[in-house]
């Protein structure tokens, strides 16, 4: 009996989520390490809730557990779009503590590495289970055609999730938004600098359009 009740509850909850416009969509912020995911999440959260989501760092894998900011209300054209933002650890196929040994001692680097690996596992799990839409953040100063990017975008596409590609760090000289547009022409690419706050209006317009 209990099982059936649980089942029924779960199903009704799922259908509620599907058909209720009021239920905030859970938007996962994905991307490789150091693309600026947390910086973006923090900017969005600060702009609309006044709080930050997590610590930012130039050292990769600062975010090692997915963090969620719920009920972020974004106002566009008089309408309000409510989303839950999930800031995820950078996804990669290799984690090596030696990347961090310049910044910390070996023991901490190894721990960071282990946690980062757990974080990737968690991020991939969330992608499968708990995300209604994806903001894919790329460092526009880096080559976007990588195994990780191709694979993740492919997974996202296979799930038919709405996805926006954010070409971050346009404040950098080496930035090339076109390179990203060319790499993933099937998706809308929005240039921005989360750090400098450049082009955030278009960012929010796009979020409202895609995830509202």
């Amino acid at each position, binding site marked *: 009996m209990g099982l059936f009740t649980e089942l029924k509850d*779960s199903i009704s909850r799922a259908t509620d989520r599907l058909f209720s416009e009021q239920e905030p969509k859970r938007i996962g912020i994905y991307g490789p390490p150091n693309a600026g995911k947390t910086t973006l999440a923090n900017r969005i959260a600060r702009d609309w809730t006044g709080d930050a989501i997590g610590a930012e760092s130039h050292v990769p894998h600062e975010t090692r557990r997915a963090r969620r900011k719920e009920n972020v209300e974004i106002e566009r054209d008089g309408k309000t779009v409510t989303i839950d933002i999930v800031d995820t650890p950078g996804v990669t196929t290799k984690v090596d503590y030696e990347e961090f040994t310049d910044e910390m001692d070996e023991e901490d680097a190894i721990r960071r590495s282990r946690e980062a690996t757990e974080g990737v596992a968690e991020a991939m799990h969330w992608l499968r289970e708990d995300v209604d839409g994806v903001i894919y953040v790329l460092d526009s100063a880096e080559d976007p055609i990588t195994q990780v990017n191709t694979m993740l975008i492919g997974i996202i596409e296979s799930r038919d999730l709405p996805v926006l590609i954010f070409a971050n760090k346009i404040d950098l000289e080496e930035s090339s938004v076109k390179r990203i547009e060319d790499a993933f022409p099937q998706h809308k690419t929005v240039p921005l600098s989360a750090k400098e706050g450049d082009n955030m209006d278009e960012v929010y317009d796009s979020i409202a359009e895609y995830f509202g």
Partner: protein
Amino acid sequence: MPHQCTNCGRTFADGSKEMLSGCPDCGGNKFQFAPTAAAVADSSAEAEGSGSLDADGTAGESTAPESDSVATRAAETVRDLVSGDSSDQSAADVPAEPPLEESAGATQSDAPWPSSEDAPETDSTTSDGEFEEWPETARRPEDRSASSDEAAADAPRETGPTDRTDSEWPPQSSASSGPTTTIADDENSAQANARSEVIPTDDLPSGSGTATRDTSDHGTEAGTDRGTAAGSEHGHEADSAVETPAGADGSSGDLDADQSPDHGRVVSEPSGQRPSLEELRAELNEQFESIKIVSPGQYELNLMELYNRDEYIISLQEDGRYVIDVPDSWRAGDDEDE
């Protein structure tokens, strides 16, 4: 069903990777390549014994059918290694379409020379360049070549391995292959030298450039099997191998097998390749791991596995243990929602 487990008879599709880790049914690691499903079964045994390759000269002509492609391959290889290999040409002559009888032995031998496409041209070129006589023969093959090419195309890649093994190790034992040997001597010596030192790995690259890679995997397996079965007499029989491609394909299996058990053993070479087989297995195994702990603090992640798994790792321990979250979808939903 180009591949068949010689132990339990299970068949594998062309390009199947299942067999790379041994037969999933019986664990056997000997496989034969069967271009035509039917004919193969019997021959399989022979195929392994295929040492017969050496039949070369005689076999070559009889085998002719597939030999064309083989020949072409051989021609190319030869070209690179030495100037003229009779084997190639001889093979070319043989062009008649392959009798299935030989199929087992022949097919495997053929395999090494998978690229039928190249063959026609190469044959002609080689023949023109060095041997005038061959042009004529070459022409015959050309006609036949179409058919042979097709046959070759189908079977060759996977079968290749066996052939290679054979072919690779033929250096000294050219005796069987009368015609080929003479011409081939140059190659044989060259190959012998190259191979004598480090047979396994080196051989593959030099032996049959194109085919090698595809076949190599299979070849290794085959090789290993044989290697274990028969000691390592590689060198002697190796010579025949070179030529074998052509000859081996055809009759060689029948005739030579008896004459030179060694040939079959030549296969031992594969043993040299074992490491690569193990690497392959390791690689395959890795593909089923979602997280590989290279060393503490160094990890390799299989994103697709992480994504596909119901459970996921939530905590890695220093000692290599890890904690996983066992999915309980209903409860999970509740937890997260509330």
